């Protein structure tokens, strides 16, 4: 029986016990929280809408004007007209991709270790990850800079990547761990029982099953990396990234291409997240619906 059916029965039972039909008590207060939530949503979404909108604004020159002057696709066509901005975006995409891949691999293994094994220092590891997430970025950025200076490592793409991997590992590990903690270990035993060695078991059973968690962690890492400003600004040296370029440009005026790029990055991120969500849904939803219908039609 589905959950809603159970609930319906409970409701029916409750109704049956009171013989006289009661007047439904519908008070206006029930609108307070929904309205409030709606307002918060507007608050959350309006900056994004503004960004998307200004990508289509027909401004005269290269600098943005915050007056709506009509619709245009010129900025989409001339997306790469500003070479420095294009280079900064390329840098950002490269750094985000590489740091995400590395942080995802490292973070996933950390999560596996923390969930699967009881070892000394497990709680310390937990605390370090929490500290890493909670620590102010400005502190991490400054600390990393002095670290790189001490090592004599020239600032550039490499140091940015190292920095981004550092702050992304904890996010990935925490996300993957949440997925792993509900993992039925008898599935791994079943794989071994069927002749799969531990390596094959990992690739054929464990990894596919925790993949949505890994993907969620990777998406988070990518999002954090591509728009990181504080830590990057400490460790970038001569290299410019998308956020650094926008920040520098903001003092004189932001070209509309920035809004377009922001829109595209946003769209890309949202679609990945949506696909991930859909994939997970498809794995669970129709399954449940069909199972209740198909139940015991053979046996």
């Amino acid at each position, binding site marked *: 029986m589905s959950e809603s059916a159970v609930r319906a029965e409970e409701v029916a039972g409750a109704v049956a016990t009171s013989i006289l039909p009661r007047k439904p008590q519908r008070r206006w207060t029930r609108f307070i929280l929904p309205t409030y939530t709606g307002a918060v949503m507007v608050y959350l979404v309006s900056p994004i809408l503004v960004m998307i909108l200004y990508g289509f604004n027909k401004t005269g020159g290269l600098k943005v004007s915050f007056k709506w002057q009509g619709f245009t696709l010129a900025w989409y066509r001339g997306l790469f007209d500003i070479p420095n901005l294009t280079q900064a975006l390329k840098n950002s995409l490269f750094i985000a991709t590489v740091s995400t891949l590395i942080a995802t691999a490292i973070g996933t293994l950390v999560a596996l270790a923390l969930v699967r094994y009881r070892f000394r220092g497990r709680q310390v590891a937990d605390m370090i990850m929490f500290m890493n997430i909670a620590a102010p970025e400005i502190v991490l950025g400054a600390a990393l800079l002095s670290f790189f200076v001490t090592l004599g490592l020239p600032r550039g793409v490499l140091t940015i990547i190292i920095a981004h991997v550092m702050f992304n590992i904890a996010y990935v590990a925490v996300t993957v761990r949440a997925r792993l903690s509900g993992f*039925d270990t*008898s*599935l791994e*035993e*079943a*794989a*071994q*029982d*069927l*002749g*799969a*060695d531990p390596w*094959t078991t990992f690739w*054929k*059973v464990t990894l*596919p*099953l925790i993949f949505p968690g890994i993907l969620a962690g990777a998406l988070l890492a990518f999002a954090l990396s591509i728009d990181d400003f504080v830590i990057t600004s400490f460790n970038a040296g001569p290299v410019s990234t998308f956020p650094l370029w926008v920040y520098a440009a903001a003092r004189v005026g932001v070209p509309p291409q920035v809004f377009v790029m922001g829109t595209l990055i946003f769209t890309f991120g949202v679609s990945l997240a949506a696909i991930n969500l859909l994939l997970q849904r498809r*794995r*669970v939803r*129709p*399954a*449940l619906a*069909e*199972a209740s219908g*198909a*139940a*015991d*039609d*053979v*046996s």
Partner: protein
Amino acid sequence: MPDIDVRLERVTKQFADTVAVDDLSLDIEEGEFFSMLGPSGCGKTTTLRMIGGFEEPSIGTVYLGGRDVTDLPPYKRDVNTVFQSYALFPHLDVFENVAFGLRRKKVPKDEITARVNEALHLVEMTGFGKRKPSQMSGGQQQRVALARALVNHPKVLLLDEPLGALDLKLRKQMQLELKRIQQEVGITFIYVTHDQEEAMTMSDRLAVMRYGKIEQIGPPEDVYETPATEFVASFLGASNLLDGELGRQTDGNTAVQLAAGSSVTVPTDRVPHDLYDTQVKVGVRPEKITIEADRGDPAPGFNHVTGLMRMATYIGVSHQYKVEGPGAKELTVYVQNLGAAPAPSPGEKVRLVWHPEHTFVVKPSAPLTQEEEVE
């Protein structure tokens, strides 16, 4: 004599502070349907997991087909397991679940298809290949789990309470089904359960376990008719047990002096030798007893006790009576509903009569604790 398929030799498994399996030795023959039966925490699942390779014995040796496999990991053992939770891979469809083992062995594609279909046919799941595990009922998942194990033609199939999650009707049906499949494929089945009826229905032999040891091992009818301990007598079916002491032996019979006064006789060959001069319990199964009114002389050559009818319950196929017997012990009697005699009513004095051949003498056991009852 058939070959020994699985042999456990003085196996002990110790976890942090408990001994799960205690110096256990066991031989299981090829092609046998063997059940390990016992309450929660008796060590049956641990024993099964040691055969499967999921637990390593602390002491002792495990042999499969004559080969020492004690140190082999599960993926190198020629056994397959049907897990309690089925453990079907949720990301693979039914076909790929069943094909998993064959793919690991690099079986050619055509053969995989043929064998998977054959296995699905065996468990009557033909046509379900494209389904995901979550799209099937518990009974169907159970069948797929069975097919996934059998398709590898293992030497031994291990089943860990595979029917535990199914409802009663489906469970009964699957019991017969499992027995049919086992006879069809001829593989050794080792079956773990806490359900005594299940074990009796399917097994060629069963072992009743408690505290990591085997209390009794044998064909179901032997264990049922002649239980070795009080624990076996009460765990496998219902028993009426009375305190007593063994007495005189006369032409093949031994008298048992009941604590409550009267005495009953047991054929001497049904009395374990090590029980003389100790406190024993003498027992009889509820269906072996006939009830008669407590008038006139009892028939000679039969055991009998008198009691007070306390409660009569009508169950349809039978009547079930609770009688207050000697020493205020409650005795249970099942009488098949033949529709002939009127049922005795509560408050009547009755005489319970049974044949000495149906009497057994057992060693007293500690009563079942609460932890043992939860499964």
